[in-house]
């Protein structure tokens, strides 16, 4: 029995013996904070220190190419936001307002670009709209041209890919915002005499501001960190991510560090500016109201037109996927100048599964994605358990449980999200290339460990966000109920907390897994021959013109991603 609170203690009111519990509360939190800081903050600091050394900064400032790339990164990202919004928001509003045949199916098809990993999406675009892609060949054949009618290159090509893959964020955020929107607010505006457009501009859109700002932030950060599209389509047009990798390949490491830090700074400033526009979420439901009725299109002509337009859109969205599938069926060397490949067979897949060495990239990607996701999940759960719990007590709003570690841990978990993948790849490479006590004298460059470690860092915000949100929604009374029924801490975690967090865990894990599986940005900087992932193999196959093999890997990646995301979204 504990003797802490014996009568002697009562004799001195206000006196509280230093309980060992405080130490046991602080130590794990401190430990996690330090571990996270070491994992995500320390590499950045190493990169900054490397950048400050020598005269690389002077070189950076004096070269016009550097400034051009930096500026290109910024304007391409902003243009991507505008384009994605211009497609995503009207689409979401239309799906919300109008009713036409196939609306439900189409509504889910519209999210399809999300299952294409960035690099796979880019090569699908290459096969489809590139100078020897289907569309170009078709145009060439129809008009009897000698040359390809266009070259898919430069900023325009990058923006095309960005618009295609990133409008989904605006579409999904707007739909989610509309779903949360209290219908009685719209009814109130209508009762006050506002017409459809007035309601849209004076009520709906202002109320959607947080959702739109959130989507804008996501698109900006994604576009800023985008590597695949500029890498494949950039040509002479350089953005910061491709510039960094090129500089590193040139062996100008200090300059690459300066570029990395510059990109990181743009990201942080962009994040800060866009965050400011987000504001507080005013979408707290006031009353129930009835959901606004969708307007069914009655006139047969308009109805037919809307339906046709809808399916045309769906076809357009599905084309990259179909292209990929088609090209994956083209045997090596069988397709030269024809508009449509003359021979189709499963030979690419057969070879893949017959020769173990060819399957290696898939196995590599799977284990690295699995391990990094698992580790990110464990770290996220630790963060959630230590600082993510809601405060107990119903009405009183009692004082915090998270304590002083809550802020730092949440910030560290979110940090990798704010910085482009290239930044982390370069920073991790720099950190683990020298023997230092702070890296435990691990030289990981050239080993198979570094890439999954980078995946882990990149996965941390994904699992962290999901798990912390799960913990916030968890009523503390559940864990208290378990405790009062005699369950110890571990039993409570296993029998109550974990099952209740399952949807959040599944969502976070599936997204993290898919991100790691399809990663190209960090892989291209950190892979070794022994752990080369799928995306690198696709790139090598393209280099030797094995389009079919590249596409087959793309299809596998796409299918696995879709299945995993589907599993994660299951309730």
């Amino acid at each position, binding site marked *: *029995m*504990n003797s*802490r*609170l014996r*009568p002697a*203690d*009562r004799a001195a*009111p*206000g*006196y*509280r013996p230093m309980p060992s*519990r405080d130490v046991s509360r602080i130590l794990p939190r401190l430990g996690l904070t330090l571990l996270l800081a070491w994992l995500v903050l320390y590499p950045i600091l190493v990169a900054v220190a490397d950048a400050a050394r020598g005269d690389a900064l002077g070189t950076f400032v004096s070269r016009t190419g550097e400034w051009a790339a930096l500026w290109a990164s910024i304007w391409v990202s902003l243009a991507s936001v505008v384009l994605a919004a211009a497609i995503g928001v009207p689409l979401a509003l239309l799906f919300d307002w109008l009713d036409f045949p196939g609306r439900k199916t189409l509504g889910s098809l519209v999210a399809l670009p999300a299952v294409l990993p960035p690099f796979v999406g880019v090569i699908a675009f290459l096969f489809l709209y590139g100078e020897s892609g289907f569309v170009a060949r078709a145009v060439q054949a129809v008009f009897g041209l000698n040359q390809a009618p266009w070259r898919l290159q430069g900023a325009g090509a990058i923006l095309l890919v960005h618009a295609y893959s990133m409008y989904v964020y605006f579409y999904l955020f707007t739909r989610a915002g509309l779903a949360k929107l209290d219908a009685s607010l719209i009814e109130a505006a209508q009762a006050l005499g506002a017409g459809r457009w007035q309601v849209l501009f004076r009520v709906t859109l202002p109320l959607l501001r947080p959702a739109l700002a959130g989507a804008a932030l996501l698109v900006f950060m994604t576009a800023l960190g985008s590597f695949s599209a500029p890498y494949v389509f950039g040509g002479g047009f350089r953005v910061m991510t491709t510039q960094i990798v090129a500089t590193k390949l040139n062996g100008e490491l200090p300059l690459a560090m300066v570029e990395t830090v510059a990109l990181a700074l743009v990201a942080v400033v962009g994040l800060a500016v866009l965050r400011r526009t987000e504001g507080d979420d005013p979408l707290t439901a006031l009353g129930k109201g009835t959901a606004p009725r969708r307007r069914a299109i009655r006139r047969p002509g308009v109805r037919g037109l809307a339906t046709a337009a809808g399916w045309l859109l769906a076809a357009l969205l599905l084309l990259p996927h179909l292209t990929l599938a088609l090209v994956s069926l083209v045997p090596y060397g069988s397709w030269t100048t024809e508009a449509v490949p003359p021979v189709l067979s499963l030979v690419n897949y057969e070879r893949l599964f017959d020769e173990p060495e060819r399957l290696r990239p898939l196995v590599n990607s799977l284990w690295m994605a699995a391990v990094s996701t698992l580790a990110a999940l464990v770290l996220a759960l630790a963060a959630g358990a230590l600082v993510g719990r809601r405060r*107990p*007590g*119903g*009405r*009183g709003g*009692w*004082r915090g449980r998270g304590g002083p570690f809550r802020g730092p841990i949440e910030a560290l978990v979110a940090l990798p999200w704010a910085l482009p993948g290239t930044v982390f790849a370069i920073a991790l490479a720099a950190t683990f290339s020298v023997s230092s006590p702070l890296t435990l004298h691990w030289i990981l460059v050239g080993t198979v460990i570094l890439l999954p470690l980078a995946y882990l860092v990149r996965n941390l915000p994904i699992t962290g966000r999901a798990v912390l949100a799960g913990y916030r929604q968890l*009523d503390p*009374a*559940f864990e*208290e*109920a*378990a*405790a*009062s*029924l*005699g*369950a*110890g*801490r571990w*039993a*409570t975690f296993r*029998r*109550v907390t974990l*099952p*209740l967090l*399952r949807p959040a865990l599944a969502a976070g894990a599936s997204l993290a897994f898919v991100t790691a599986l399809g990663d190209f940005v960090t892989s291209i900087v950190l892979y070794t021959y022994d752990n080369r992932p799928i995306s690198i193999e696709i790139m090598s196959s393209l280099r030797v013109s094995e389009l079919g093999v590249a596409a087959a890997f793309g299809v596998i990646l796409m299918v696995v991603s879709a299945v995993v995301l589907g599993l994660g979204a299951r309730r």
Partner: protein
Amino acid sequence: MTVTGFVTIDGVRKRWSPAVTVGPVSLEIARGEIVALLGPSGSGKTTVLRLLAGFETPDAGRIAIADEDVTALPPARRRCGMVFQHYALFPHLDVGENVAFGLRGHADPGRKAGEVLKLVDLTGFERRKPHELSGGQQQRVALARALAPEPRVLLLDEPLSNLDPSLRERTRRELRAVIKRVGITTVFVTHEQEEAFDLGDRVGVLNRGRLEQVGTPDDLYERPASLFVATFVGRANVLQGATARALGGSDGQVLVIRPEQLRFTDGGLPGLVRERRYTGAAAYYQVETEGGDRLEVVADPGAARVGDRVYVAALRVLAFREGRE
């Protein structure tokens, strides 16, 4: 202090912030007794309950159950059954699994869970999920779950606040019947006086973190220990100055007079009937005195009409010193 109760709370104090402190609270609870903790929100009643359950650790003081010091014991080892305000039924488990949750190590959890469910009249509900039950049924499952491991003390946090008002009275009686049948020592928290009086053998009134008075409902109503208890429990006219003196008080006294202790008479404190609220068996009259004070009087429905000049006299007054609560 000699320990006489089954549950002993001895000088327990919990400080939330410099301005918000609960306690020191001392309370003895006899075996099998039902004690209600009554108070306005923020008075600290839930804190006392959570201290008993072990969810909070006191800054000072001692808690003992059956002569065992449990002050530093974690909730899992206190053997206190708790019914939460929103029940906290595990949504991923069905009713049977919820009730059997605390029966790890029990020889036959299934049979025991069935027995307890029978006690709360929910036999046959084992395979339902919590969200498939009505509010009243959920409340009974929560009670069954808390009782299943045969705890030493049962704790209830606003057990009826989540129910429809029409259900509350019946559920209250059923709750008391089950608790008395099991014979378990019970502490429950409520902010409703009627609930506290109906369910509790004794009622403890909390105000600003202090236990103002503990007693039977009769005690609290007839012999309140403080002005706060007198006004918080039951309806009360609170009077000072000339009006107080006219009804039998002296200087520096605050008088508390229950509406049923005021009568219309032929001579006494003069006033004007401003409002009349009819309740069937009686009527409540708002009488304005010449000094501008308002008095609430319960009388015969035909005793007066709005606008009548009346005289009011007090049968019984409770006097408190001014400036003290």
